[in-house]
């Protein structure tokens, strides 16, 4: 099922689930960019982010790293998503929390699908785009409409989109009754406590971080950059607060594209965010 046995693991974590304590994070690389119509390269991110993470201090809480989902390059996108959802299900059954390294953002549909089957969840969507393009059955699944599909899942009780910005055809600040959109301009005026108030504490939350939420001059290695984004420091503080003050049932960092990166600075930010999530005491 998994690739990369014996290779570099995230933060040097062990690669077997057997002895992992319940509640620990379980890293899974998803080297797939099937859902990105703009550019190839996100499939290279799991390896690049693990390399960048090797330069960081280990987080306080040790997790496990199962390596990469095998065979992504040889399978259709639907198959990859089905297999990823099944793997996330196994991870959850073992009492662990998925920590995915994308891959493009379309993959987040798989963990969201699996996790909401266990009860209502909230989803935090850090992204420069709302990913709410129209979708109809039979259309290929992509990173442009993935949040529209996730928001429609019966177990997704809340969506908090943070980072929408730029010039768009329509006003995308309203994504439905269960959703809240915080634009980048609004987010800059908020601190972590303000953001937490938008996340009901009784709800378990999944954090999905599209690296393009960050200003592209800080994080250029991504396929659909939008200028004037958030600063990594702001994002780190907010993610740290979420991980420490809310029940986080899983997370991902997606859309890092090493092919477009400059000196690995985007992978480094992604690694730091993963470390922030894993390092937080958090409710498990």
């Amino acid at each position, binding site marked *: 099922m998994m690739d990369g046995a014996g290779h570099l693991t995230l933060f040097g974590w062990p690669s077997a689930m057997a002895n992992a304590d319940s509640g620990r994070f379980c890293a899974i690389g998803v080297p797939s960019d099937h859902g990105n119509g703009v550019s190839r390269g996100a499939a290279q991110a799991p390896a690049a982010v693990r390399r960048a993470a090797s330069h960081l201090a280990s987080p306080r809480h040790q997790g496990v790293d199962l390596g990469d989902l095998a065979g992504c390059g040889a399978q259709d996108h639907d198959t990859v998503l089905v297999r990823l959802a099944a793997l996330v299900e196994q991870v959850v059954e073992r009492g662990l929390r998925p920590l995915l390294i994308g891959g493009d953002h379309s993959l987040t549909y798989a963990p969201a699908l699996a996790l909401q089957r266990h009860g209502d969840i909230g989803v935090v969507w850090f992204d420069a785009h709302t990913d709410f393009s129209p979708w109809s059955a039979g259309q290929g699944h992509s990173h442009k409409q993935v949040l529209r599909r996730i928001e429609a899942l019966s177990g997704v009780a809340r969506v908090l989109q943070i980072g929408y910005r730029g010039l768009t055809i329509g006003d995308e600040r309203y994504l439905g009754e269960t959703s809240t959109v915080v634009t980048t301009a609004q987010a800059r005026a908020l601190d972590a406590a303000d953001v937490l108030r938008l996340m009901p504490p009784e709800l378990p939350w999944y954090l999905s971080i599209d690296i393009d939420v960050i200003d592209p001059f800080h994080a*250029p290695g991504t396929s659909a950059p939008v200028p004037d984004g958030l600063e990594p420091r702001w994002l780190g503080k907010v993610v740290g607060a979420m991980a420490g003050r809310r029940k986080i049932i899983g997370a991902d960092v997606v859309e890092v594209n090493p092919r477009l990166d*400059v000196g690995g600075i985007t992978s480094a930010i992604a690694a730091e965010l993963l470390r922030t999530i894993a390092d937080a005491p958090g409710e498990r």
Partner: protein
Amino acid sequence: MERAPGHVVNVRDAPPWRGRRLVALPDLLLEAHDGGYAIVVNAASGARLKVSSGLYRILSSFRLPRTLEEAVEEAGDPRIAAGVDALLGRGLLMDADRPMPMAQPLRRAVPYRFCNAPRWAAPAAGDGFVVLGVPYDLGGPGHCRDAPMLIRQRSLDYAYLLDLDTHRPRGWFDAASGERILKGVPIADAEDVHVVYGEKQADTFARMETAMRHALGERSVPLVLGGDRSLCFVMARRLAMRQPLTVLQFAPDTTMAHGEGEVVTVRDVGRRMAALEGIVSCLTLGLRADAGAAVEAGEITVAAARARGLAETVHGAMMAKDVLLAVDVGVLDTSMPPEGNGFSLSEMRDLIDAVGRRHRIAGIGIFGLDAGGMTGGAVAGELLGIVACHLALYAMHGASCAWQGGP
């Protein structure tokens, strides 16, 4: 052989070339051909022309100098005469014994249009923007000639669409301000000015000025996609004919150096514009602390602008009502990660807003985008292309506010 524009040939008249020897241009190449048309390239000028197969057959009959009667059996057919007239008019045929110097075309076609806006067809009577690319960069050291194409290509992510009901431009929703910008504001793309490298700068500038004169209606605002910022000189000279004008340049280094030759350069363009008739003032904002030369009068550094306040800096400057806004994208901090040496996009937006609140933006120039010369390589260049699109649209919004009663 010359005739006035719009002259319609009456085939019953004897055309002036009747009895004269004609010849196809010696530098023609055939790029494509099928049953319906041919694409002919003038290798001397680079111009491409699409002609019908019928016209191409006539053209082929004049490989050697000959009269129509010598070249074509059906010389009396009025359609043949009309075809010869068309070939002469398009410069594919010439008088073999009295060759005319080749006239350069004013503009040339481009593969993409800014935001996929309609191709310019005629000067508009009302308010609106006309986009004009000028791939000229011999006024400075950077390679900026590819910038018009790069900016247009990246601008395709911001599609120009019409409202379903009103059929007027929809504009774009600006997530930062929560408002729709450029709603109802028409944009047309007049393609690129034809630039011939090797000719005199004055000839290129004259062609650019003629292209502006042809394309702009009385109330049109040009968006010029450079090229380097020496092109601002042409914009200033043209726009100052309408109203007294202030030129506000955003540039990372001096524009007020003394000219050293006949060529307008990025370093002396400010000083040269200040000497033009109709120019009230010429300001440059955004010089780096390490710009290398002492800051001249009318030049303000990034640090000084920040210390005073961005809006206060703009409002405190002595400016005419009409302002030509020229942005050399080098004024931006494009380091990765940002080091704060130049303005951020957010700061540039605030500055442009400040101009639009008090002044009428009469023209917009985006200059100095050297995609290949940046730290960060092609990725940074592409990114700067996106930033340039945003700058252009923000500046257009600032200009349109004057038409719509202020921001």
